[in-house]
């Protein structure tokens, strides 16, 4: 559906996006993940044809976004960052204008507008001026603008920024349901959001793609590090002795010295072994009371931090 081939974007000597390539298949929900300034918006702006890449080509549904702009742009619904809207128009007028811009046929227009307003729950506010709407509604109006004309690809730039938790859930559900009919690309720096909604994640940092995978795979790959967190009451300071006999421990660090006299340690072990049972037995023998014993799960957050950190180290060498 979308093919990005060796795309580079330079601003003078600053390279915002550095030779990236990826494919997105029909019906996929793909998340763009990256720290601020990583090049997410720049990449999206290039896919939508708002800015031109310095090098490389982008095909949308087989059409080159630069050479066959009209055909390619017809397949795209774009919700830009910060939800820019025409504040002097009413919701319905705005959607109607977007329908005109997107070459919706006059006969179908009325029906198209109705459907879009229904999908995004805007019927109640259709005659209100956009400037009088709350942020959550504005977000939905912007989404409606992207949806009108039934484009095959939806590109949503930070769709949940600035919303309250309830609205975030609503928008996420909306995106999920849209994913059944459209190919969706969304950018975000909220990791839990991406792992909930997306089937595929593209992690991008300093203009380069660091990883393309499913959220599950990314999490699994990060699990190489096996860390156990344990909170103990160790009055006689015997913890060093207690863990000595346990095999496979690589490192133990004191994390926190709590006020109630307990201490929190993190114990790093070799991958694929679980020493929780040994810890329990040995600590009991030495008279150390365990308050908490937990094996940390790698999250997408860890995967992300790792990838971004590695990348930075690589850059310094």
């Amino acid at each position, binding site marked *: 559906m979308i093919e990005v081939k060796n795309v580079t974007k330079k601003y003078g000597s600053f390279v915002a996006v550095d030779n990236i390539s990826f494919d997105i298949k029909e019906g996929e929900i793909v998340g763009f993940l990256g720290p601020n300034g990583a090049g997410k918006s720049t990449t999206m702006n290039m896919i939508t044809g708002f800015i031109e890449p310095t090098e490389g080509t982008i095909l949308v549904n087989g059409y080159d976004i630069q050479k066959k702009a009209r055909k390619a742009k017809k397949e795209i619904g774009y919700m830009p960052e*910060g939800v820019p809207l*025409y504040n002097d128009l009413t919701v319905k007028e705005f959607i109607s204008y977007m329908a005109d811009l997107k070459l919706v046929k006059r006969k179908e227009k009325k029906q198209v507008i109705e459907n879009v307003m229904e999908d995004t729950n805007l019927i109640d506010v259709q005659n209100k001026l956009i400037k009088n709407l709350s942020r959550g509604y504005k977000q939905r109006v912007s989404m409606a603008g992207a949806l009108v004309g039934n484009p095959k690809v939806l590109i949503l730039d930070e769709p949940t920024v600035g919303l309250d938790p309830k609205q975030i859930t609503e928008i996420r559900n909306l995106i999920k349901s849209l994913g059944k009919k459209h190919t969706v690309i969304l950018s975000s720096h909220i990791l839990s959001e991406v792992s909930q909604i997306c089937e595929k994640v593209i992690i991008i940092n300093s203009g380069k793609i660091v990883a393309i995978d499913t959220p599950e795979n990314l999490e699994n790959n990060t699990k190489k590090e096996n860390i156990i967190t344990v909170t103990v009451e160790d009055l006689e300071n015997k913890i060093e002795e207690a863990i000595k006999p346990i095999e496979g421990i690589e490192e133990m660090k004191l994390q926190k010295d709590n006020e109630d006299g307990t201490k929190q340690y993190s114990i790093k072990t070799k991958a694929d072994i679980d020493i929780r049972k040994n810890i329990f037995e040995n600590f009991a023998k030495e008279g150390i009371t365990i308050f908490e014993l937990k094996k940390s799960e790698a999250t997408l957050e860890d995967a992300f931090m790792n990838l971004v950190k590695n990348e930075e180290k690589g850059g310094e060498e």
Partner: protein
Amino acid sequence: MWAIIKKEVKSYFLTPIGYVFIGLFLAMCSVFFYLDVIQYGSVQFEYMYYSAATILTFIIPILTMRMFAEERKNGTEQLLFTSPRSITSIVFGKFLSAAFVMLIAELFTLVYLAILFYFGTPHIQTVLTTILGFFMLSLAYISFGMFASSITENQIIAGVVTIGFFIITWFLPNFSTELTSFSLINMFNKFPSGLIALEEIAMYLTFTALFIILTIIVLQRKKSIK
């Protein structure tokens, strides 16, 4: 293009801009109608337009300064330029809608003409050429105002650049008589004598086309440097 014209014209009248422009224009015309026509007891409608042409310098930016600057500032240009519409049709749409508002303002001045017809018989040919010439002048002004709006995201700067440019062309003949034919406002002075000044019309249209094309180039170019 129709979609853009429809929306732009609507925007002029959803915001106070359209009303302020037409109101200000007509208010100034009334003053000149009184000073230049009524006070002399003449029926020479075109005298009002001589003075109105100077006022155009200061009110055209009301129509043009927001055209692209506002869209860029608000980010709505992202909606516009990612739609399947071409930059050319967007530019023409915006240009024609400003021209349309100008035309409405000009048609309102026919009320003054009606008053003159009630009391005397104005020379109809000079009236028509004056209105034509004035519209040509405003098209040229609008095209430059639109160009100024396309180069910045600050409406004030767009407006000031526009007024500054008009004032410079206004005073060109003072520097050298050879530059007279490049002064937009001087070119207008031929029309109220009842001539369809083909040379001047050609100049106006060339100027208008030039700045429409420059606007398109600027917007196209912004895609690769933005």
